[in-house]
């Protein structure tokens, strides 16, 4: 056993047993952050805050929600919304956060793409981040099922049908996932389990991995500077705080993060109290009915772009294009062949590639919401083709980029 001395304080008592000073250094006071980063780098902290809001509001919803096809709809729309004191608050926080979290994830992702934060040395940050995105998507989908309204039911029907693999007719696989011929009790209960236990556990594990992936390559910065963190941190610790290119995470950098989080929370609670409707589909206020399809089935806004890639093709080609869209972002560090870790504006054709990709995804999102008829169908088709072509073009245009 180690040598214990009489503790001089509670902190010292804990320190001898838990090494809290060391943990504090690694996690906070000697976790070094470059100075030249803008508010876009605070999106990670914004996401942490949103995840905490989802977790807490989810726990409160869980206490009255009933995962039963006969009672689920009323437990949400009557019990939680009307009977439980402040039940409406938890539901609106949960609903708005589930929607806004994707907005922030997309900003976080495109910030990473713009500044080249996925490049050599930071591949694991990017890959773990994309795994988080996929898990968040599954979490959002499984949560969408739970109120057991019309859109829940039909989204469940359509998405699980994707697993039949088009012409493969793997209906046994679809029935296995559902535990029934159609979405029913077995389906609701297992998606409830996924939503409240398995997927949140996976998300928390992946958040841990995502943070751990930052420790060695460190956070990128606005100019893509290669900072020698050992030298710069020594400079800082020696007292040259102004000359050092880095600062402590806590409390110095965190004060800036918290400023951004504060502004975000004003926006967030404005939505929760005055504009929660955007996160609630009116169709989902009809109870699930297996014998009546709503006129238009569309996913929440954050899945529209990939939905639109599925839609304009025949079933097999559509599924392949959809699968491609789901996984291709993971390959970004390897498809971008240029060694330049600088903002897109200082690079060659990549500058145009970045904005073309962003605009294309916005067009796909808009077309995904509109009914698949006439000119919208054509625009959606062209945008879906453009999405695939952009990814094929990426290795070529970045290979010929000059080294900066």
């Amino acid at each position: 056993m180690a040598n214990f001395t009489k503790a001089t304080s509670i902190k010292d008592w804990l320190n001898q047993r838990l090494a809290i000073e060391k943990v504090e250094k690694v996690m906070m006071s000697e976790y070094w952050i470059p100075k030249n980063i803008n508010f876009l780098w605070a999106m990670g902290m914004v996401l942490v805050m949103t995840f905490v809001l989802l977790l807490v509001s989810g726990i409160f919803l869980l206490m009255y929600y009933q995962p039963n096809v006969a009672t689920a709809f009323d437990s949400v729309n009557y019990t939680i919304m009307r009977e439980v004191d402040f039940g409406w608050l938890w539901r609106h926080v949960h609903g708005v956060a589930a929607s806004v979290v994707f907005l922030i994830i997309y900003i976080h992702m495109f910030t990473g793409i713009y500044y080249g934060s996925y490049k050599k040395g930071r591949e694991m940050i990017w890959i773990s981040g994309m795994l988080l995105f996929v898990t968040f998507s599954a979490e959002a989908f499984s949560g969408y099922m739970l109120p057991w309204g019309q859109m829940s039911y039909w989204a469940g029907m359509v998405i699980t049908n994707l697993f039949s693999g088009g012409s493969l007719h793997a209906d046994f696989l679809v029935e296995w996932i559902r535990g029934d011929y159609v979405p029913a009790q077995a389906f609701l209960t297992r998606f409830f389990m996924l939503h409240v236990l398995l997927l949140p556990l996976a998300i928390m594990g992946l958040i841990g991995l995502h943070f751990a992936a930052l420790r060695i390559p460190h956070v990128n910065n606005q100019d893509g500077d290669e900072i020698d963190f050992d030298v710069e941190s020594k400079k800082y610790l020696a007292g040259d705080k102004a000359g050092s290119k880095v600062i402590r995470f806590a409390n110095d950098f965190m004060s800036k993060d918290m400023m951004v989080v504060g502004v975000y929370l004003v926006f967030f609670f404005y939505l929760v109290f005055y504009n929660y409707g955007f996160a609630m589909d009116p169709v989902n206020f009809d109870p699930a009915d297996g014998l009546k399809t709503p006129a238009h089935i569309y996913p929440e806004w954050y899945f529209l772009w990939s939905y639109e890639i599925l839609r304009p093709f025949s079933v097999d080609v559509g599924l392949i294009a959809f699968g491609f869209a789901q996984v291709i972002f993971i390959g970004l560090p390897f498809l971008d062949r240029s060694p330049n870790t600088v903002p897109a504006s200082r690079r060659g054709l990549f500058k145009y590639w970045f904005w073309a990709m962003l605009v294309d995804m916005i067009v796909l999102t808009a077309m995904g919401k509109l009914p698949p008829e006439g000119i919208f169908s054509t625009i959606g088709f062209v945008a879906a083709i453009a999405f695939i072509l952009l990814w094929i073009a990426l290795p070529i245009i970045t290979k010929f980029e000059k080294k900066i």
Partner: protein
Amino acid sequence: MKDSSRRGFMGKAFGGFAAVGAVASLYAMKKSWDPLPSVKAAGFTTLDMSAYKENELVVEKWRGKPIFVLKKTAKMVSSQTPVQAERDVMIDGSHYMIAIGLCTHLGCIPAYKPSTEDFLCACHGGQFDFSGAVTKVPPPRGLDIPPFKIDGNKLVLGEVGPEYQAMKDTGITL
């Protein structure tokens, strides 16, 4: 040397047992997600075919799925192409379209328009004619026909009769 080979054997034996255990538990997990016996057993529906009116789509329910029943008019029957005619279910001298009312693309329910005598699936724009054959993609094939058995004036869904078996064998339905 003797020790290390003994340890190696122990390691392999342990690994072997662990692998068997892992496979067995994966099998149990797979089986736990299969549809329950009660779900599988509730799979039969009997329809009385004398109640239907011509060119009026009736939606029945079988295994939680909507079943389209459409009694064809004389005009429909006489104008049918061979592809449309082979999908007919003949009961008591009348021609019926019997099909699972889920679009073969991704499973939405197409809507029937009696005036144009066809189906439109709003989700992805697929179209089917009055016999359930596909007329506009993305659906990869016509509406699926549920297993049926003709019993005089009645139709039993979920049981395989000779007429259904023939359709399956010739590839009219899956």
